């Protein structure tokens, strides 16, 4: 068989890796800035440490593997991993949480599999899960908002002491996240009607004026960023819509059955990292299925696991676990959900040619 260069027209693909990464970084920027404003200097320090750790590990691994360092380092993928990881961390976590997390995400989550595009799990979520399992105390220190430049916010030096000195700020007001509170108090046989009033308003939760990870608190900013990416066609609607709809349906159904035991869909949709996870984490093109149907299954699985872990699991929040679990299922989904090959049946046999389209067979010697 001879191969000829094909003639025009060619399909043009302007989307390069750096461009996609840049768009996602831009979309996640509002939530990041809001998190920094909400939690002050320590949050900025943690973000910088995490990103720096990711870039250093990436450069070291690329060097070790003998790849070109500059093009891969500057493609933005390690930067994005660092930002997403930092957004999932408690904002006042000590610096070594960010450093260990960055190492775990890049070296164990990405580079041991062969670098960009080869990883099985979402690197940022893998690192978050490893940190949560290993350092439960540091990873569940949630603060009430301490906005930048407000009277009780730490100054620059205090911020450095919190991040790098390991000095706990005694003035800081910490408290459980709303999901954590629901879990604890339900465990003490109280009912939601007694738990939620005074601690939860849908409006503040949506705006993000509440405790939580650095970038997860403002669901509206995450939602807008995600919708903008959708509009720019960085990803399709299948994964986020399937994920959010599954949580909505599960939470809505069980809430209707027993409103005192199961929190309303609004609580589930507007709390924790669900929005951030649905738009920025689960849509990772490397670790999610390639077909539309596969992406719907993947998103629905993520949503179901989030709800199951939040409601019956051992942790109050389960977005990272859910995404990592479904990442592991992605090869299986891709194996069973395959697109039909053009001109063939679903089973791979040739489809019958209609009478009007039949032509005499082309001789093998005709093409040179």
């Amino acid at each position: 068989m001879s191969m000829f260069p094909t003639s025009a027209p060619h399909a043009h693909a302007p989307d390069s890796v750096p461009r996609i990464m840049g768009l996602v970084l831009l979309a996640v920027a509002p939530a990041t800035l809001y998190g920094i404003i909400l939690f002050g200097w320590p949050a900025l320090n943690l973000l910088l440490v995490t990103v720096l750790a990711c870039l250093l590990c990436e450069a070291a691994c690329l060097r070790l593997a003998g790849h070109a360092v500059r093009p891969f380092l500057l493609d933005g993928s390690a930067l994005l991993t660092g930002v997403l990881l930092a957004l999932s961390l408690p904002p006042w976590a000590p610096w070594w949480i960010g450093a260990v997390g960055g190492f775990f995400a890049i070296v164990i989550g990405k580079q041991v599999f062969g670098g960009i595009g080869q990883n099985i799990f979402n690197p940022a979520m893998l690192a978050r899960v490893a940190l949560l399992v290993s350092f439960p105390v540091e990873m569940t220190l949630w603060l009430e908002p301490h906005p930048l430049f407000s009277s009780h916010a730490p100054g620059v030096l205090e911020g450095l002491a919190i991040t790098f000195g390991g000095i706990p700020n005694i003035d800081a007001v910490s408290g459980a996240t709303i999901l954590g509170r629901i879990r604890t108090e339900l465990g003490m046989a109280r009912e939601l009607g007694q738990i939620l009033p005074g601690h939860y308003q849908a409006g503040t939760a949506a705006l993000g004026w509440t405790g939580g990870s650095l970038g997860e608190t403002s669901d509206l900013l995450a939602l807008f960023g995600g919708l903008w990416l959708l509009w720019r066609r960085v990803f399709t609607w299948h994964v986020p819509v399937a994920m959010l709809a599954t949580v909505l349906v599960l939470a809505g159904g069980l809430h209707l059955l027993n409103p005192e035991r199961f929190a309303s869909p609004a609580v589930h949709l507007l709390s924790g990292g669900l929005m951030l996870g649905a738009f920025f984490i689960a849509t990772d093109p490397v670790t999610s299925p390639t077909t539309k149907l596969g992406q719907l299954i993947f998103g629905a699985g993520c949503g179901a696991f989030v709800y199951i872990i939040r409601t019956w699991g051992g942790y109050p929040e389960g977005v990272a676990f859910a995404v990592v679990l479904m990442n592991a299922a992605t090869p299986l989904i891709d194996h069973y959900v395959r697109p039909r090959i053009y001109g063939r049946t679903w089973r791979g046999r040739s489809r019958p040619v209609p009478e009007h389209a039949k032509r005499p067979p082309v001789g093998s010697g005709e093409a040179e």
Partner: protein
Amino acid sequence: MNEDYRGILADGLWRNNVAFVQILALCPLMAVTTTATNGLGMGLATTGVLLASNVVIASCRDLISQEVRIPVFVLLIAALVSLADMAINAWLHELYKVLGLFIPLIVVNCSVLGRAEVFASKQPVLASAVDGLAMGLGYTAALMLLGGCREILGSATLFAHASLLLGDGFAFLETTLIPEYKGFLLMLLPPGGFLVLGFLLAGKRAAERRWEQRAAGRGKAATEVQQSPFTV
């Protein structure tokens, strides 16, 4: 003849190491290597069983018919493991409390049956004894290395509880590297074992490649390129 034994030793300790090259016996490897001391204890127990089983099987290799060899090997190994189990329970009771569950499981340790089938059933007694010893020591070294790495990362100590295994005279081995270390729990859980094993495997292969390159660079004038640093 002397060369042969050296080759057997090099095989067991490095070239055909149970853990790092054969990748056998991973179940106890993951389960007990949370400290270097546990690794040492488990490794020595396995070495004892390997040595004894290789000697016994090599000495009755002509009596065992080909068809029933596997059940006979298993029975012999099981008897030896039971002896080791009772001996450790009697004389190293504190260690037995830590390793207790895994000592009887040496019987299903694939490396023991593997050496019986591959080596002891075909070789004379002395060679089999050397092979069992070398394989066991290689495995012990691997367990200790893995246990040491996981212990340092996971709890910032080294050879914790060594006096339980080796007697009070060895209490000086017990080191605490970082006081008030909060612990890196993942390293003490099985995933940490797999991660450390993976990195050690990568390190071993990288080191071997470097040695080969160096030997090749040096051996350009010479005719023969040496394979392993142990046979130089």
